[in-house]
């Protein structure tokens, strides 16, 4: 039965102001029950204040075979990191 149900990716926002984070997936016949299953599976211990469910089939993923051309070019471009500034001592929390 479960294998007949589509898969949904579950995102939980742990508290106001933070972003939703991917926590896992559930099977469910439709969106409403996907939310119920997500609630029962992933927020049993007060983990969240907000839930998203997204049909897994709707997620477009990058191709692992293209990892080289997609991500490696960024490796040699350290000037894209803001590491060349002198931070005054008085500035905290950076």
């Amino acid at each position, binding site marked *: *039965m*479960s294998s007949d149900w589509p898969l949904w990716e579950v995102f939980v926002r742990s508290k106001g102001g933070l972003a939703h984070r991917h926590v896992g997936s*559930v*099977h469910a*016949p439709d969106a409403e029950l996907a939310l*119920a*299953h997500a609630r029962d599976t992933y927020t049993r211990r007060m983990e969240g204040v907000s839930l998203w469910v997204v049909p897994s089939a709707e997620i477009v993923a990058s191709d692992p075979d293209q990892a080289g051309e997609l991500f490696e070019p960024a490796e040699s471009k350290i000037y894209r990191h803001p590491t060349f500034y002198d931070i005054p001592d008085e500035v905290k929390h950076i």
Partner: protein
Amino acid sequence: MATVAVDPRTEVLLRLGDDALVLGQRVSEWCGHGPVLEVDISLANLSLDLIGQATLLLGEAGDGDKLAFHRDVLDFRNCLLVEQPNGDFAQTIARHLLYTTWQHMLLQRLQQSIDKFLSEFAHKAVKEVAYHRELAVDWTIRLGDGTDESTRRMAEGLDWNWRFVPELFAVDDTLQAAIDGGIVPDPRSFEEEYRSAIGAVLAEAKLAAPADQRPILGGRRGHHSEHLGHLLAVMQFLPRTYPDATW
């Protein structure tokens, strides 16, 4: 060990506490046997909510563990609906729909009880039960308006449990005294609302209301169906066989 309730308040605590305990134990029988993993977890959550409610109510009525594990079947004050067997998933959902719709309406009103404990209890439990009812409604609609097989099973599940609904609205002298004292609401005051709420769910599920059957009463006086004894045997076995066990 006979537990004769001494006053209407204690009796109310026992009735609501035993409802929650017995339904919680029943639903827990699904643990590890749910139709799919996600539903298994949902059902276990429902069960834990109910056992938590029972712990509060029976703890207020007396020694909660003693009341739960060392009372015999004739001393239990739960309604007959909650002790009915799980049957298939649809029958379990039918029972949960019929009971938690009533329980939710009761708790909404119980928040205004003059009794501080019951009022605070209702504030906490009403949110849990709102979710129970919503889940039962969701599943009733999906099974009722689903395949031929799920429609048949949902109708049969409702049919099994239907005759135990009138007991939820029966008022005996003890309950009347509690109502008069402002401790609990009169269930008859929301009987119409209950009927139309259930009717609306059945309409959306494209199910006909079951034909009214001869009502079966008696749970509140300890006259239970044969099913409760078997449930208690499983639930009470460990603490009765090993009274010194701790965990």
